[in-house]
């Protein structure tokens, strides 16, 4: 066990997973990830090439090229860096390269804000990357290890971004069990792509396809792999537990959802705080529960539908907004919950690092417990003051 920040954890994860090429560009609040990696390499503790690229766009381009050469890669970014990468995120999944990236969720400007907000990664949900949101530093470690394992399977071959809430995880020290490289090696074998750049294999990687050619078929294959990943992740959670002794429910975490009338659905660190609130309300006799989404891609629609079927009321907390109509998690949860005749309300919270305190979450649970169906979307915590702290 070590006392590590989320960012230090991500760096150690890249090390124990034996990433061989790291291409990254510094951005607050991701910087300590790459600083730690540089330190590990400088101390001879990590055997990797660190390409100090001149932009995040080039970071992803270099990772794509290195991974295509058959080498395990890692990168990390935040906010503007992630959105600058957007073009190449789609490239990475289209090229079926199981790159793993730490994303420190941070707000987008203007106005400048370096604090937690999930607009950056939510805006990448259509890129073909798997997305997992951590609620603790231990989960950052475990998710990165599992991301390589799942992504590199020949029947998946997809990249994964592992999210940390800015500062709340990235800069907060928590005890983390860091497995050794050998322990991880017995779970995660060396990268073995079914194809790679090699002078003995003269082929064009990613050439032009006409409308009658198999462009659509290749897109379908990505969809198939992403769908398959749903099952693979559930299985890998069991494998992971056997090897490392830590349990994950799969794509989601169920917290006292079984007999709950009102369930809230959310992801990231706010879900951790919400568990305290659930316990508090339960002790007052209120039947509330929490479904924490771990993987937003692939989307856990089955688990959500199951909870929706057994709930009288659902609230969805979004830490970002899709300007036009509701938060992204809400709209997807509602679509997954559809067969259930249950009202699904959207609570927009915590934008730009606005703190999500137990009081804020209690307020949301109390609102949901009234089971009112008059308002679909509500922004909670506006005009922030002492009441919310």
């Amino acid at each position, binding site marked *: 066990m070590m006392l590590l920040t989320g960012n230090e954890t991500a760096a150690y994860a890249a090390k124990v997973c034996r990433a061989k090429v790291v291409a990254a560009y510094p951005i607050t609040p991701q910087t300590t990830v790459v600083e730690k990696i540089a330190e590990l390499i400088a101390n001879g503790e990590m055997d990797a090439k660190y390409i100090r690229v001149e932009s995040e766009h080039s970071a992803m381009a270099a990772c794509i090229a290195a991974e295509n050469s058959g080498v395990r890669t890692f990168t990390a970014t935040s906010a503007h860096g992630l959105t600058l990468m957007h073009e190449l995120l789609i490239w990475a999944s289209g090229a079926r390269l199981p790159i793993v990236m730490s994303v420190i969720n941070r707000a987008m400007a203007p106005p400048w804000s370096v604090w937690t907000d999930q607009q950056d990664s939510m805006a990448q949900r259509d890129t073909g990357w798997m997305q997992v949101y951590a609620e603790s530093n231990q989960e950052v470690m475990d998710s990165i290890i599992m991301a390589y394992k799942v992504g590199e399977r020949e029947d998946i071959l997809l990249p994964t971004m592992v999210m940390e809430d800015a500062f709340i995880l990235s800069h907060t020290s928590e005890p983390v069990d860091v497995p050794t490289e050998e322990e991880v090696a017995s779970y995660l074998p060396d990268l073995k792509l079914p194809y790679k750049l090699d002078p003995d294999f003269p082929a064009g990687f990613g050439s032009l396809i006409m409308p009658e050619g198999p462009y659509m078929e290749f897109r379908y294959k990505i969809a198939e792999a992403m769908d398959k990943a749903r099952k693979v992740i559930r299985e890998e959670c069991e494998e992971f537990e056997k090897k490392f002794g830590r349990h994950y429910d799969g794509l989601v975490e169920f917290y006292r959802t079984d007999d709950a009338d009102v369930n809230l659905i959310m992801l990231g660190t706010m879900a*951790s*705080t919400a*568990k305290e609130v659930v316990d508090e309300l339960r002790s007052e006799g209120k039947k509330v529960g929490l479904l924490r989404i771990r993987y937003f891609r692939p989307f856990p629609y089955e688990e959500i539908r199951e909870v929706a079927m057994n709930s009288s009321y659902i609230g969805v907390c979004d830490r970002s907004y899709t300007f036009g109509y509701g938060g992204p998690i809400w709209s997807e949860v509602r679509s997954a919950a559809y067969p259930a005749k249950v009202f699904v309300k959207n609570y927009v919270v915590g934008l730009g690092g606005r703190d999500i305190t137990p009081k804020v979450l209690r307020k949301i649970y109390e609102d949901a417990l009234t089971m009112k169906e008059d308002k679909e979307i509500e922004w909670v915590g506006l005009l922030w003051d002492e009441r919310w702290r």
Partner: protein
Amino acid sequence: MIEIRFHGRGGQGSVVAGKLLALAAFKEGKYVSAFPYFGVERRGAPVTAFARISDRPIRIKSQIYKPDYVVVLDAALLKQVDVLHGLKDDGAILINTTKSPEEIKFKRKVRRIATVNATEIAIKHGLGSKTAPIVNTAILGAFAKMSGVVGINAVVEAILENAPAKKEENASAAKEAYEEVRWVE
């Protein structure tokens, strides 16, 4: 769960103090977390850092608004920052100052006011320079005594393992401050 807030200045090592305290408590089998003020730290500017210590896993991820303890690394901050802001009614404060605890006066009630001359102790042990002494390890020794939240042995162990330099000197400073700290109820 015990929540602690550190007041210092950018560059004084408040964040490290929070992390070392968490580490010490962790060594005693407690659940811990430690974090800086989520912001833009600039050398010299007043900063805060935080730690949580609990017998149960720590699930709360929000900020600390109502600490049980406040630790002030630089007495000059008393005039510049409302260090008691949010301190629980039964909370306690530890201040690095040349003054005795009796000489410290607050407008509101504080359960326990403790003081220690961590600056003098740090200089004596050769930590930092005369104009910029590093007091974070000494103050942790004093904190162990005045709070009882963590034992001095664990604090010393955490320092020996993690101090970037002068491990022995830092540990000695913590032990001396442990002996020197005084308080009033």
